[in-house]
């Protein structure tokens, strides 16, 4: 046996040991290919992320921001959370990339190159809030399985692309269409090519909104690989899992899309509220649509010490899924009394809204600044955890920072 062959065979078995699982399609692995699980262990370099980001999982990559990192009105890549269900695709060629529109309810199945998408359809830019459905999961009790997101799985970048509606109309939507489902090129953790890590979607009514776009730019540049280069579906205000990355196919469905992570407890919550820890049957679970009203104090970072007599200037962002935030308040007495913040209009629909306030403290001591947003339906954030659900979604309990006045 040639030394090189020996090393290659030995490497495959040690790869398997390191990953803790057999590499199912090892024999099909290209010479010199290092499994993604073993790639550059420094995600901050790998994805150009701020050092303050927190890695929750490295296979697949799941990285979250911290509240104080999200103070930019438009979130830069360095501070955007990453939530992956599978492995980041390795080799992407934008020149040969295509998008296919198919499904039971398409009139004419069509395939477009990226160049065609860009030249054939009008382009739009929107700033869109994307929040992971499981943001805040770490607070649920009993605990919910999954990545234990705290508060940092939300961002609001600008996205440039073409309206999904224009593409769907170009291919033609049959009258019986009710849903769209996306398909992408990311790899399943098992490396089984017949499995999709995630394939979600949304009802036609959401798919044809002005702001639902197939984007090829983020913050004015090519979308970073971890965020879906070269083509990402962006559906602001809904769980970010609807905004599929690395999209190469959109299916127009005559039923609710039944792709991976559309069923069971994934991105679904009990249709009727349940006691914490309850077992909920599949048929009693409903798909999450619009995300709930929520806000974050992004300045100052929790732990600020100020002197008596100094005013504390706070800022942050508030968002409300499909709705807008109509009122933003803060409390420094554990919710006993509330004061209004100044809250700006969103730059466009489905973008978060910046709020500011200047706070005077009556005397020295330990304080918590609590923030509470109210949406245009009059629904406000709860102070305590909202309804428990098996996977710990939709925690929009008010954000709190600690402040000391000395």
């Amino acid at each position, binding site marked *: 046996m040639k030394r*090189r062959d020996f*090393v290659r065979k*030995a*490497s495959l078995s*040690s*790869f398997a*040991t*390191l990953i803790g699982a057999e590499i199912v399609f090892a024999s099909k692995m290209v*010479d*010199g290919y*290092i499994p993604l699980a*073993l790639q550059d262990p420094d995600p901050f370099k790998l994805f150009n992320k701020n050092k303050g980001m927190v890695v929750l999982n490295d296979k697949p990559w799941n990285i979250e921001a911290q509240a104080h990192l999200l103070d930019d009105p438009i979130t830069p890549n360095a501070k955007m959370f990453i939530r992956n269900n599978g492995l980041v695709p390795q080799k992407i060629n934008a020149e040969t990339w295509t998008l296919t529109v198919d499904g039971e309810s398409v009139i004419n199945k069509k395939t477009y190159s990226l160049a065609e998408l860009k030249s054939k359809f009008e382009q739009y830019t929107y700033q869109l809030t994307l929040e992971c459905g499981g943001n805040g999961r770490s*607070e*649920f*009790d009993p*605990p919910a399985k999954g990545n234990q997101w705290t508060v940092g799985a939300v961002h609001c970048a600008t996205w440039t692309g073409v309206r999904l509606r224009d593409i769907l109309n170009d291919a033609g939507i049959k009258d019986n269409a009710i849903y769209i489902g996306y398909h992408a090129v990311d790899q399943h953790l098992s490396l089984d090519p017949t499995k999709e890590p995630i394939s979600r979607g949304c009802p036609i009514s959401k798919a044809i909104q002005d702001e639902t776009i197939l984007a090829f730019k983020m913050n004015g540049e090519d979308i970073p690989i971890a965020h879906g280069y070269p083509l990402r579906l962006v559906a602001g205000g809904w769980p970010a899992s609807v905004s599929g990355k690395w999209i190469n196919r959109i299916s127009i469905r005559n039923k609710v899309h039944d792709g991976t992570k559309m069923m069971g407890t994934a991105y679904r919550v009990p249709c009727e509220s349940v006691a914490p820890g309850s077992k909920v049957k599949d048929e009693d679970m409903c798909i999450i649509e619009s995300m709930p009203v929520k806000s974050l104090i992004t300045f*100052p*970072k*929790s*732990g*600020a*010490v*100020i*002197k008596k007599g*100094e005013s*504390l200037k706070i800022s942050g962002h508030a968002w409300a899924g499909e709705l807008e935030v109509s009122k933003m308040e803060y409390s420094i007495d554990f919710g006993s009394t509330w004061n209004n913040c100044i809250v700006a209009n969103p730059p466009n629909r489905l973008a978060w809204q910046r709020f500011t306030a200047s706070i005077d403290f009556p005397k020295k001591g330990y304080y*918590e600044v609590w923030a509470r947003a109210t949406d245009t339906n009059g629904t406000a954030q709860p*102070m*305590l*955890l909202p309804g428990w659900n098996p996977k710990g979604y939709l925690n929009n*309990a008010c954000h*709190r*920072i*600690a402040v*000391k006045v000395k």
Partner: protein
Amino acid sequence: MDQREIENISLKKQYRILKIAIAALFLYTCGFFYYLFNPSCLDFNSKEVPTYIDDDDRIENGIHVSTGLIEAEGLMLVVNNCTNCHSSKLVIQNRMNEDGWNQTIKWMQETQNLWDLGENQKPIVDYLVTNYPPRTKGRRMVLKDIEWYDLYNE
């Protein structure tokens, strides 16, 4: 990345695995010899404690049926020392760290006629801390791990 670099990386990884395996074998061997010379070290019921008499010491689904306590190292010490005077429910619903449990034991000795636990105190507290650690959640957690800093410079 060329073939040679890949080979280097994979050889380093295999070397690391080998090191871990040798370390594990060493620990296992030490543990085995310790057990040979101290065969009672894994028998936690052998300590001299006031005898607890109960017809039902069954364990079902990892739970000691008559007390509801979690089956784990130190269970019978806790059953025998902590459930004579009060229900095991008092143990189960109270979650404390090591210091908290030690303080509580001290308080029970000072005011509740709890006997000196002697060498059993440590394994009892270890059991409690391991199996009934402080609740870190609730309907809302206390803000913790706050790093204080001066916001405005002097």
